[in-house]
């Protein structure tokens, strides 16, 4: 947890230079304007000045205060551009890492099934991040590195950087993505080469094969409303749904049902027929038009064999 202002990547210097230039100009102008206002209020106050002058324009002045700001903003534009241009020029030999954004966690895929929840990178090595979203828009932001790019489904957005100082840095999600948007944070850990190699060798190959049912659940953003870990969001959590007693409210009143094949199908195809007690009707729309029969089979199988267990 170091550094709030000092940049920790090769790109920070260009960004900070643009900041400093713009803020210096702003500071000078604002001080000058405030000073002029006070001067006017004191020197030309109604008490002091009984003879307001009646001039109403001056072409030379208009030209001056058009041309000078144009020059200044063009310089600002230049600094902004100079700081940004290198961000798009990824060195050919940069080490690629796939960043996966899903509601509300980041994970980092180093290839060959090696997936980490922290972004661990070696010091002074060019890193290219390929940004991939499994559901909605996210934003990948590392303030200390001065880099940010949106993570958009269907887009191959990317960024790159070279970490120039060891430490641990914050990752924030900067594109609003629902309930736990502010919890979608993570860490970048910069290690020197030897430590990185050791860490990488120890990184277990995780079982990357996602259950096809879960994949469908994710693609259809069911997780906006349903959690996998027991948290109640807009709808009930999927945890423990399989084989358990479900209390539902029907037109005839409350009744008890079992979380089985038929129940889950009905919940997906006709969600508002029986509404789970404690939740509102009309929130979940029917997926009749959206999901194919075999998709639903896969979802049911997922609940049965994995996600629906206690």
């Amino acid at each position: 947890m170091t550094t709030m202002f000092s940049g920790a990547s090769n790109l920070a210097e260009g960004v900070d230079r643009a900041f400093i230039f713009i803020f210096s100009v702003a500071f000078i102008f604002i001080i000058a304007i405030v000073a002029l206002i006070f001067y006017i209020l004191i020197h030309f106050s109604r008490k002091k000045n009984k003879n307001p002058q009646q001039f109403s324009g001056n072409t030379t002045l208009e030209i001056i205060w058009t041309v000078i700001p144009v020059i200044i903003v063009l310089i600002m534009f230049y600094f902004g551009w100079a700081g940004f241009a290198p961000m798009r020029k990824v060195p050919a030999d940069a080490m690629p890492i796939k960043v996966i954004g899903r509601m509300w966690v980041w994970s980092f895929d180093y290839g060959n099934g090696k997936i980490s929840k922290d972004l661990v990178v070696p010091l002074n090595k060019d890193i290219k991040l390929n940004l991939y979203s499994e559901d909605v828009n996210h934003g990948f932001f590392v303030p200390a590195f001065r880099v940010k790019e949106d993570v958009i489904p269907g887009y191959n957005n990317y960024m790159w950087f070279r970490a120039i100082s060891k430490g641990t840095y914050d990752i924030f999600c900067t594109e609003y993505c629902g309930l736990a948007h502010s919890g979608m944070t993570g860490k970048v850990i910069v290690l020197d080469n030897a430590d990185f190699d050791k860490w990488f060798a120890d990184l277990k190959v995780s079982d990357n094969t996602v259950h096809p049912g879960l994949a469908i659940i994710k693609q259809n953003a069911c997780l906006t409303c349903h959690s996998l870990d027991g948290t109640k969001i807009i709808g009930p959590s999927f945890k423990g749904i399989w084989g358990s007693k479900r209390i539902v409210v029907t037109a005839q009143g409350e009744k008890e049902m079992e979380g089985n094949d038929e129940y889950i199908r009905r919940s997906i195809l006709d969600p508002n027929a029986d509404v789970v007690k404690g939740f509102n009707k009309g929130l979940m729309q029917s997926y009749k038009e959206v999901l194919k029969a075999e998709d639903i089979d896969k979802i049911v199988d997922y609940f049965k064999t994995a996600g629906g267990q206690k």
Partner: protein
Amino acid sequence: MNNQTTTTPLNFLNHQTGLWSWLTSTDHKRIGLLYMYSIVTFFLVAAVLGLLMKIEKSAPGETIMTAQTYNALFTLHGIIMIFIVVIPGLAAVFGNIFLPIMIGAKDVAFPKLNLFSFYLFLTGAGLGLYSQFANGHSPDTGWTFYVPYSAEASSNVVIALTAAFTLGFASILTGLNFIVTIHTMRAPGMSWFRMPLFPWSLYATAWIQLLATPVVGITLLMVIAERTLHVGFFDPKLGGDPVLYQHLFWIYSHPAVYVMILPAMGVVTEIFPTFSQKPVFGYVPIALSSLAIALVGYFVWGHHMFTSGMSYESRWFFSLLTFLVAIPSAIKVFNWLSTMYGGSVDLQPPLLYAISFIFLFTIGGFTGLTLGSVATDIQVHNTDFVVAHFHYIIFGGMGFGFFAGIHYWFPKIYGKLYSIRWANIGWGILFTGFNLLYFPMFIMGIQGMPRRYFDYDPKFQLGQTISTIGAIILFTGLITMISNLIYHAYKGATAPANPWHGVTLEWQIPSPPPHENFDEIPVITRGPYVFDNPHTTK
């Protein structure tokens, strides 16, 4: 000049009485007041939502509400403030009340259409609120409705877009009404360059409304087609492009920013000469810079999307144009300062607000340049820095412009004087609260504090707490200011026709103005800001 009390017994406020006479009135001044009362009510509701959000953020973690509630609040706060309060705000209120008077007309060109626009506005506002609660759904998309997240609440998004379009349509009709009024109803002798600058700013604004709002309509049609016919426009699941949605959204919403700010610039442009007893400096540059802003403002929307994966060239192009659109605003600031320079300056509440406008707007402008510069935008995009920036522009600009306007024209509208002392006290509290609330957000934003965050890293605690204290102070200031005005609208001393010694036409008729403004349409023989007899006693 004329200092005699000229309150005639019959004026637009009392020539007919009863609620019904107000709800069906086609008098532009009454319609303006109807807008004002509705908009101020909405404003206060949304301000309370903002205050609650700030209290939630006084400490990390959950303090007074859940994340779900917080997300709902920032969505509602944004939707009400942007679409119901700020976009229509100044033009609908002061434009309606003063545009016809300032150009020497008895009403707008189409008075019935004007009343219709008001009800369309109310319908849109109602739909906007309904969209957030329909289908038992709680609002949580943010006022920008970005897909694909908003697609989860698709039916509500359709209603929300319909609301935005209805509201937009209401302001198109108002804009059209203003354009025709300005073209055809100026008093004899009032050439374009003899027209006061507030009407000029309304003219530029009306054109933006007219040309930009249809984009919302198109977006709406596309969303409906996507939802019902499954044509993939925006939703990646249907093969659509989520970034296309962002483009369309900002093609409308960026010009909308100028719809918010241009009339406010027009208001302060009226105030500086009156309180300096000196002509506007640079009349033509100020008038033309409004048009320049309206024109260039169309082509800068991409600066909201520098991190969306847009092409290298488009980031270049949008950044450059964004820098250029700042120039006309800078020109205005220099001209306002020069208007006061050499005058006989009387620091009354309207001028106090107008000067605060310059200060806050300049800070908003420079931080806007920080967002226009690509490198720095990458760092502060979607952080608290952006939130602070647009509150400096919208609240510090449009909001303080509105407060300046109401303190300027209040004696004219109600024929009553408010307490100058309490107006100054209200200003002091408001101004202090404003800067305490928003300035720390610049610093936190640079440090990386993202926006729309319910919870935050404890390292931001200090800035967040100061910001919360600022919010409470600001709210106290608002209440002080508004109470002073409401109380004196009933109990204030009678105002003369021209308390500030202004020279534009609204000051030449009684306070409050009579039903049809002028007994006899004035004949204009010179520019709007000629002070023959500057008034220099207190």
